[in-house]
């Protein structure tokens, strides 16, 4: 293997195109994913700021609306209801799929799987490249859909038919929805290629000594996430295809007995509830596809920066697997009041609340890892601690939403919005930020400025709670989500102040992400040069040279002799013992 790599280096000189564009090197592909993800993130977050402004100051005129949305969608600077729904829809789609699935998993699975398991590259570099370029293509189509005449998709990111199937029912269900579906189909193909690659690589390409029980928790998280993706994404693909059939070829998979715009449509015998089942069979595991990699990243960063082994390594693996398994049998909790048989509701309540157990184990294990540590409070560590905080705050309200009885009255209100933004949105974003701060030196060979990182974290942390904590209350007051304005209901007039406060926090929080962007892009070129192992970490990626080379290690691939969490091991004088350091004669393994 290593001889082959040397050959490769001698005979081919990388051109600009093979190095930066159609690269098959996992490290370059990781960077491509990250930067595309960041661009999509800027768009997605920007959209949320626009519709937050509309919610705080309904139907008021803002010049910025007119500039960004144009005369058609914001005449005289007043946002129209159709574009409001588009912004909400595309914000959800972009954040869930393009930022927190592709941006997060794509970046860190690609960067870390080969480097942390001791492999030269992914199992299939070519497929990896195709995976990225399909993702890029789907991003382009999704962004392109913003510019079509009839407007982008606006049936909500869940695109429930008939609304998404009938152009008569809403403007965005014309070409906008077609592009949405095409984009998602390509996205799913990309995601499947990526996931298969991750699975094969983890199973087959681990270096000598790297048994499954010596894998860093990051790898466990990416591995299990990839399995969930392979199991559930095809179901969404089939739902999308069936929806395309209903839209374009007159089938009735999801439609029946419809009278719209003065005529009865021919559809007969289908059911939108079937679509909901198919959608949430991916949709719920998707939540874990988003959060598990973030939790994996956090596990690694908290252990490294606590200078302590992660508490309960095996329990952490078991809880990842348990969460993954349960995630595929809980989708019905999105459908308690969809009209499905209430008995199913009881079953899904049961399985859903079970997920709280492995989640609680994870939260407590993180807290115990901090106990009696020697915490290095780097920005990455702050974001990881922040993740645990928002994961707990957001996760706890899941006990309410997972309980069918309580869900009746808070379903589809702002309470749900507050819950999932904290538990998967903010938490996963924190995981992504933590990962960027931690592995930036590994990606770009330079360091991010830590003081800017601190400013970024604290403002973000305060604004995240500032946005989503009050949102629980307006949800409990019965305010439905996806309302363009609440002015049609005097009943909700007393919630307007809260909406203004939320928006102010959102705008400040959004603006301070510029600190991160500045730090990120300027540090790529002007950051301090990184040393090989700046955080004194145990995992293999820090044994590779700072300069990226094909094949990752110049000589032999390092051999692994111990687990990744020998921090402050009493048998050693230094507080970290990398995985490739052989056991001392007679050294005992101090963990289960």
């Amino acid at each position, binding site marked *: 293997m290593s001889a082959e790599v040397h050959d490769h280096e001698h005979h081919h000189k990388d051109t600009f195109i093979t190095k930066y564009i159609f690269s098959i090197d996992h490290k370059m592909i990781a960077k491509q994913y990250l930067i595309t993800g960041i661009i999509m993130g800027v768009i997605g977050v920007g959209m949320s700021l626009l519709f937050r402004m509309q919610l705080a100051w309904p139907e008021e005129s803002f010049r910025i609306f007119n500039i960004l949305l144009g005369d058609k969608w914001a005449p005289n600077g007043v946002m129209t209801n159709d574009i409001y729904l588009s912004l909400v829809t595309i914000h959800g789609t972009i954040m869930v799929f393009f930022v927190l699935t592709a941006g997060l998993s794509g970046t860190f699975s690609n960067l870390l799987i080969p480097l942390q398991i001791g492999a030269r590259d992914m199992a299939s570099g070519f497929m990896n490249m195709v995976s990225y370029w399909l993702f890029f293509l789907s991003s382009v189509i999704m962004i392109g859909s913003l510019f079509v005449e009839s407007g982008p998709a606006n049936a909500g990111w869940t695109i429930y038919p008939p609304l998404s199937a009938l152009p008569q029912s809403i403007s965005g269900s014309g070409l906008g929805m077609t592009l949405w579906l095409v984009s998602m189909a390509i996205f799913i193909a990309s995601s499947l290629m990526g996931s298969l690659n991750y699975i094969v690589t983890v199973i087959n390409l681990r270096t000598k000594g790297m048994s499954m029980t010596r894998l860093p928790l990051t790898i466990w998280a990416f591995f299990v996430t990839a399995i969930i993706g392979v199991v559930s994404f095809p179901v969404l693909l089939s739902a999308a295809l069936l929806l395309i059939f209903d839209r374009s070829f007159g089938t009735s998979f999801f439609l029946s007995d419809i*009278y*719209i715009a003065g005529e009865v449509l021919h559809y007969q015998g289908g059911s939108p509830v079937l679509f909901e089942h198919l959608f949430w069979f991916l949709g719920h595991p998707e939540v874990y596809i988003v959060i598990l990699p973030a939790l994996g990243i956090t596990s690694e960063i908290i252990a490294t920066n606590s200078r302590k082994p992660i508490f309960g390594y095996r329990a952490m693996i078991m809880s990842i697997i348990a969460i993954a398994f349960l995630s595929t049998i809980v989708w019905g909790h999105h459908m308690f009041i969809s*009209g499905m048989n209430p008995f199913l509701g009881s079953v899904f309540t*049961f399985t859903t609340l079970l997920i709280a157990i492995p989640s609680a184990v994870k939260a407590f294990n993180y807290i115990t890892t901090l106990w009696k540590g020697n*915490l290095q*409070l780097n920005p990455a560590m702050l974001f990881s*601690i922040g993740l645990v905080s928002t994961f*707990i705050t957001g996760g706890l309200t899941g006990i309410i939403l997972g309980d069918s009885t309580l869900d009746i*009255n808070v379903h589809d209100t702002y309470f749900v919005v507050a819950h999932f933004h904290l538990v998967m949105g903010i938490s996963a974003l924190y995981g992504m930020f933590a990962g960027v701060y931690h592995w930036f030196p590994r990606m770009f060979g330079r360091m991010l400025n830590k003081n800017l990182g601190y400013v970024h974290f604290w403002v973000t942390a305060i604004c995240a709670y500032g946005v989503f904590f009050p949102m629980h209350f307006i949800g409990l007051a019965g305010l439905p989500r996806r309302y363009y304005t609440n002015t049609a209901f005097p009943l909700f007039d007393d919630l307007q102040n809260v909406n203004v406060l939320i928006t102010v926090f959102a705008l400040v929080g959004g603006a301070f992400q510029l600190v991160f962007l500045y730090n990120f892009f300027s540090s790529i070129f002007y950051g301090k040069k990184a040393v090989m192992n700046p955080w004194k970490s145990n995992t293999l990626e820090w044994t590779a040279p700072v300069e990226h080379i094909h094949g990752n290690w110049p000589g032999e691939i390092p051999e692994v002799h111990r687990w990744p969490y020998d921090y402050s091991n009493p048998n050693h004088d230094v507080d970290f013992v990398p995985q490739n350091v052989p056991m001392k004669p007679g050294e005992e393994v101090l963990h289960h």
Partner: protein
Amino acid sequence: MTSLLVIIVLVLLAVALWQLTKIFDLTQVGSNVDSSEVATDKDNDIQGYLMFGFLAFIYIFTIYGLFTWGPLVLHTPASAHGGEIDFLMNITWVLIFIVQAITQVLLHYFAFKYRGKQGQKALFFADNNKLEAIWSVIPAVVLAGLILYGLYAWTNIMFIDEDEDTVVVELYAQQFKWTARVAGEDNVLGKANVRYIEGVNTLGVDLADPYAQDDIVVSELHIPKGKKIHFKIRSQDVLHSAYMPHFRAQMNCVPGMVTEFAFEPIYTTSEYRELPYMIEKVANINAIRTKKSAALVAKGETALDPYTFDYLLLCNKICGSSHYNMQMKIVVDTPEDYKAWLKEQTVLAEQVKAAATPAPVEGAMEADSLKVKETAATSKVVMK
């Protein structure tokens, strides 16, 4: 102008950031401060204290929120099963607050307490089966309790006893309005399908069905207090959701099928208006509206009407552009008032008949315009 200002602010912000980082760099020149961007002891100290401060922030914000926004949330359920839901909700909230209070303290306090110092070594503490058993079993037991009570309540609420003496009402959803159909004296709804929609028969009721003869179609629903109302819910176009927050009731409206929900109202509209919490809430809302009206009048627009409370049926599933304004008033009457109201209503069959006979001028006009619509629809089909 505003956009220019925004751009200037952004540029200035970037410049300020750049200068700040430069200053940080300059202060570190010549000193032996580690400039590797790794946290130093000083950083750990500052960040540790900030973590502690953040804990205070979370607590203060929570308490502030409970006092300021707590009174805004839904109060006193207006239905018999609502008490059960609220009881379970309150138990769950107590649990959540206990767990939240403890875990956030531990997390942030540890982050402060164990902030790192150079040369210090952490405790090697890799696992402990006893501890892990504790925090697997405790949540499991607590959740088992919640699940059992939740399922008990769910079964009570959702499984509707067909033999029970109920008032059967259909809720009918379409973009962007609600209509209701009261089952009338026989308490059975006539069959319906969108294919029967024609003229005044906007709900597609099968007028040949004997059960349909006494059905009453209304756009403002009255229901009697103290009797279980059995809602059968339909939609003619897209998904909607029938949400009645004060009754703790919600069910999706699915084209192609009939969904159900049942509850017993326990306060009439006027009784609910008199609840102390509601009087206070309405006063508060009206204070806000008066202030807004003053601003509107100053701008030369009309003032807002004062608000009085009414039960509402809202749409709570995105259904199109005007989703945000799809509502129907629900009035809970005493049984006597309800009977009186029912008497005033004309049954659908009569309305259809009246529309068909070309007697009064207005009716004829209506029928004519309907015909025009129909022809338009047919021509559309032909063109297809």
